[in-house]
């Protein structure tokens, strides 16, 4: 029954993907990307991946639309050339699709409990999380504790991408002429009022997701994205300068680096206390309490870095716009 939902949503997903590729106006493509992300989040939720769906929701609903639109504002929104030679790519794509579909006939069916994926390490995680870590959300336990190295790596990738954007687009020059026009939404009083009302609630909800991540869907990645969305909403309403006044760029830099350092620092602290790198059990006299403390700090580091990185990227694009 639920499988039928998934099939319906996946069909819509294919339609929207083809529409994204075919449509001429890039602004429309970005709008359809928004729908694509909404469909993706629903599909993830129906396939039992609540944490992933929350991440896709936090990223796809606000951040990615805003970043794509601010890039479009700088480059222009019309695709000028039709595809010149479409037959060769189409041929390649058709052959590859057919090959992949042929290959899937050997895959285990959806939901097969005997599939090789479910035999290896996953049952161990599910069995031992209550005893070793004692938090209900197994995804958070695996993310922050069992596979802490992976997550540390991902945090550094986000940090590197942020540094890359700042290098490529350049920081805002100090003596840049102040934009003469009034920033923010000018003609829209009602959205401004309602939006201003929502900003604190979005940030509050972000904090809830951050600290409730051990018990329900949530964690640092989602919380960072949600809080960044809240501050981006403020920037959209009041103008980018006002948002920079509220969260100055020096603070953003400190957040981006500080979160990553916090994550690494917890690992180093574990070494100094006599354990392995990122082995939180030694952080407290009781190993389970140590795990709780370690996961809390690590998720906090992730949240701070993601929030700072997304906001820095947003400001880097927005600063270009006013030059």
């Amino acid at each position, binding site marked *: 029954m639920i499988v039928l939902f998934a099939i319906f949503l996946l069909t819509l997903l294919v339609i929207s993907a083809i529409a994204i590729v075919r449509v*001429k106006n890039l602004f429309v493509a970005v709008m359809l990307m928004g729908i694509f992300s909404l469909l993706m989040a629903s599909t993830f939720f129906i396939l039992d991946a609540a944490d992933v769906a929350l991440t896709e929701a936090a990223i796809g609903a606000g951040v990615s639309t805003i970043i794509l639109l601010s890039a479009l504002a700088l480059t222009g929104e019309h695709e000028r050339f039709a595809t010149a030679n479409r037959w060769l790519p189409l041929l390649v794509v058709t052959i590859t699709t057919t090959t992949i579909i042929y290959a899937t006939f050997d895959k285990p069916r959806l939901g097969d409990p005997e599939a090789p994926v479910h035999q290896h390490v996953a049952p161990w995680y599910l069995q031992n999380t209550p005893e070793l870590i004692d938090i209900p959300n197994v995804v958070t336990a695996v993310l922050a504790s069992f596979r802490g190295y992976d997550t540390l790596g991902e945090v550094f990738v986000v940090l590197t991408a942020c540094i890359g954007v700042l290098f490529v687009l350049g920081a805002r020059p100090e003596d840049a002429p102040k934009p003469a026009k009034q920033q923010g939404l000018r*003609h*829209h009083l009602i*959205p401004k009022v*309602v*939006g201003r009302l*929502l900003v604190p*609630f979005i940030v509050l909800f972000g904090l809830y997701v951050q600290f409730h991540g051990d018990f329900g869907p949530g964690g640092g990645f989602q919380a960072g994205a949600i809080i960044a969305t809240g501050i981006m909403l403020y920037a959209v309403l009041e103008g980018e300068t006002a948002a920079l006044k509220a969260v100055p760029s020096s603070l953003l830099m400190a957040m981006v680096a500080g979160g990553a350092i916090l994550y690494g620092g917890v690992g180093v602290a574990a070494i100094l206390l006599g354990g392995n790198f990122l082995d939180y059990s030694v952080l407290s006299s009781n190993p389970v309490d140590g795990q709780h403390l370690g996961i809390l700090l690590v998720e906090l580091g992730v949240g701070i870095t993601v929030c700072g990185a997304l906001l820095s990227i947003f400001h880097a694009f927005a600063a270009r716009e006013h030059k």
Partner: protein
Amino acid sequence: MSMMIDIVSWILLLSGGAFVFIGGIGALRMPNFYTRVHAASLTDSMGTILILAGIMLQAGWSLALIKLLAILVFLLLTCPTASYALANAALLSGLKPDAKTLSPDDKGRPTP
């Protein structure tokens, strides 16, 4: 008693679904932009209220009830605002709400 609550919540859920569906048809079939906004936004609010009320009756007194209330309040704040802002932006950009001038397509031609 619980039977009554179930029946009421089923009626609410079904009528909410019907409202949502009618709104979808309206957004697809109406002739120009402003009528589509009208069809989509009103039924959106009504469908949201009915469906969430139906779920609330099923939830009973729990944390979920508070979350559902929060969802309802925020959806009721944001949806009409978004529709208003959209219609306002379209009006400011020069899309005339005249029944004779149907909404132009991307290249500015009137559509039949």
